[in-house]
């Protein structure tokens, strides 16, 4: 009976093996597992390594995917060349959270040895890695707002071709007071840096031109239903929203569902062109002030929009456009240093000196903090002018040129105030 218990078949399999061999094999296997991971081939000389920190998972994914599309549209158009060098793009998904951004930034810089970084997307992601990129001296071009990184805590390795968070909202505040003749506005935006800085910018300019903010509402970044907040909008003649990602869609719906009819103004993300295909009729009448508008009829923009449509069958919004422009800036900078990005300080200086005229967003140049000085477009969402098969369109109704991050205030005066935050500027009696 017991003979049946010794599996003969097993013995056959282990014929050649002894216990010693088993021990040795296990030890060898463990050693191999602990040995260094195979490192990807690090090309030292030829290709220019470009890293992209984007978000492909989570509520901000919508913007992140657009970012990548914008970069790839540029690379496909120029056949993966910048400043005479071949470009190697390495994309990393930060997951839309600061800890993930730090890990991916480390991956790009330490493992993939990138020469420059595009992104990250969100202000809080950028704030998490600003010290690190400064230490590593890696030029970073981001869409992230984070005002102070080009103001009171400037990072010399940072360049922003988009807009500081408050930069687009300051002209919006001016426009709302002077042209829309609004006097009492309720602001509503997400409860994070980007939201505070946008609303702060709006409030400063709006108050300067005679307006007053009645109250400020701050729903969290992830809010399934905006109704409890929309219900608090009252006693005003206008609403200023600063939502990002896909939140503007839901907010406009919730707002329409309350039956309120006050005009709504917003900034660069609240009425983003990429959302045009998803907005419903409730969004008609939305006024936005943005660094980029798909409406712009120039050769540079038309080429870009057609590239996006051809490659991805999608209308570009801020995220895609700014990434495309950033690529143009890198290419120009690389050209200026003759293709040699190894001297990081020199490369950074060349990037900051770039001045372009024919980009999808119009003329581009940078101030001494590395923030853009450019044209901002005020648009109205409606059915007029709709192209590319869309039902809704953001039609440009006013243009502000040469707008810097300080709007009309002298730089010193602006910097003397604290950075825009949840409570700054403070609410005053209306």
């Amino acid at each position, binding site marked *: 009976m017991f003979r049946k218990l010794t599996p003969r078949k097993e013995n056959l399999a282990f014929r050649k093996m002894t216990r010693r061999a088993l021990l040795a094999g296990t030890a060898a296997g463990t050693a191999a597992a602990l040995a260094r991971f195979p490192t990807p081939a690090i090309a030292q000389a030829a290709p220019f390594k470009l890293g992209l920190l984007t978000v492909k998972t989570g509520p901000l994914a919508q913007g992140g995917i657009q970012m990548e599309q914008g970069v790839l549209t540029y690379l496909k158009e120029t056949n993966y060349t910048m400043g005479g060098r071949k470009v190697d793009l390495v994309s990393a998904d930060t997951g839309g959270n*600061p800890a993930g951004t730090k890990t991916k930034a480390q991956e790009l810089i330490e493992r993939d040895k990138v020469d420059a970084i595009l992104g990250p997307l969100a202000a809080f992601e950028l704030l998490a890695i600003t010290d690190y990129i400064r230490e590593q001296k890696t030029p970073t071009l981001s869409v992230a707002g984070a005002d102070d990184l080009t103001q009171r805590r400037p990072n010399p390795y940072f360049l922003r071709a988009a807009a500081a968070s408050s930069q687009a909202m300051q002209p919006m505040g001016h426009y709302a007071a002077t042209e829309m003749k609004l006097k009492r506005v309720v602001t509503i935006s997400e409860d994070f840096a980007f939201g505070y800085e946008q609303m702060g910018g709006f409030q400063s300019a709006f108050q300067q031109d005679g307006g007053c903010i009645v109250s400020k509402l701050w729903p969290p970044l992830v809010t399934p239903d905006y109704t409890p907040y929309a219900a608090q909008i009252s006693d005003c003649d206008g609403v200023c929203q600063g939502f990002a990602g896909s939140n503007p869609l839901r907010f406009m719906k919730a707002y329409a569902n309350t039956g309120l009819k006050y005009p709504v103004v917003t900034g660069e993300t609240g009425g983003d062109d990429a959302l045009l295909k998803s907005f419903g009729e409730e969004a008609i009448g939305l006024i936005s002030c943005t660094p980029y508008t798909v409406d712009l009829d120039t050769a540079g923009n038309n080429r870009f929009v057609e590239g996006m449509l051809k490659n991805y069958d999608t209308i570009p919004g801020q995220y895609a456009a700014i990434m495309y422009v950033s690529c143009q800036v890198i290419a120009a900078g690389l050209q200026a240093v003759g293709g040699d990005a190894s001297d990081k300080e020199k490369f950074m200086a060349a990037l900051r000196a770039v001045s372009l005229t024919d980009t999808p967003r119009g003329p581009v140049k940078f101030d001494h903090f590395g923030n853009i000085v450019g044209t901002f477009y005020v648009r109205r969402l409606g059915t007029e002018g709709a192209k590319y098969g869309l039902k809704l369109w953001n039609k440009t109704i006013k243009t502000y040129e040469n707008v810097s991050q300080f709007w009309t205030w002298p730089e010193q005066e602006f910097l003397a105030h604290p950075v825009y935050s949840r409570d700054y500027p403070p609410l005053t009696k209306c």
Partner: protein
Amino acid sequence: MTGRRIGVAVAILALIAVPFVIGEVYYVNIASQILLYAIFALGLNVLVGYAGLVSLGHAGLFGVAAYVTAYLLAAGYGHLVAILAAIAAGLVVTAGFAALALRATGISFIMISLALGEIIWGLAYRWISLTNGDNGISVATRPAPFGLPLTSARGFYDATLVVFLVAVAACAIFVRSPFGAALCGTRDQPRRMNTLGYHVWMIRFWAFMFSGLLTSVAGILFVYYNEFISPQALALTASAEGLLMVISGGAGTLLGPVIGAALVVIVKNVVSAYVTRWNFMLGAIFVAIVVFMPEGLVPGAVRLWRSAWRALSRREAAVIATRPQP
């Protein structure tokens, strides 16, 4: 017994050698992450593996220590003060958790711990004036114990390794102690333990505190590693990943959580560079382990290894027995 001691010495030497063998800063950082998450997993394992209480809210405890450290550092206090205060705060909150959660066992315990974890997360997320909400709190410097700076990857790794070894030693002592045995008793046969005169609730409570201590230490290491803390680190997903580490490695074993932590960290960071849908992979691995190898990777591997060893020794004995005698 000497075999085991040699094994332990070899393992320690191997761990010390890691930064030298793996030259690249990036991978040394991954190793640091594995160690600090291993401490988290070891802490969770005390409850899950040895006390039989599955917690889905441990990221909350992790986060309390991390946030207290970051908050005090940002307020201008020194590292020592911040660390001690964080551990103290972590223990206080753990005691609160324990007092509420230990009223239940089994599935109820899971639910209460989940709710408590969510409460802490909700406070971190929405109590903006205290925690800065989604923007998180940045930590400017790392401590320099005994004057040795931890700013480099290698330096941080060495410090984390020391803490890790202490944690493992503490767990080993704990498991082999009479208290540890009693804890396993309460896991397997709570009623009998009660009958025998053991105060089941108190045993579980102290186990919970020990777990909380380890988790707090991991939280402090985490905030120093990232130099940043935000509510994402306390979300339900973070607790779930912790559970994944413990279960996949092998709950109730000493090495299991360490292997599990290595697995999860590697999939999240290294594999994610090659496989875009790593979340799916993580979930699939988890399901596969729970269904096919529920005791976890370490016990499963040990089981396979032992059965191979036994089969071979039986074979060799048989061969020797049938050899012609001179």
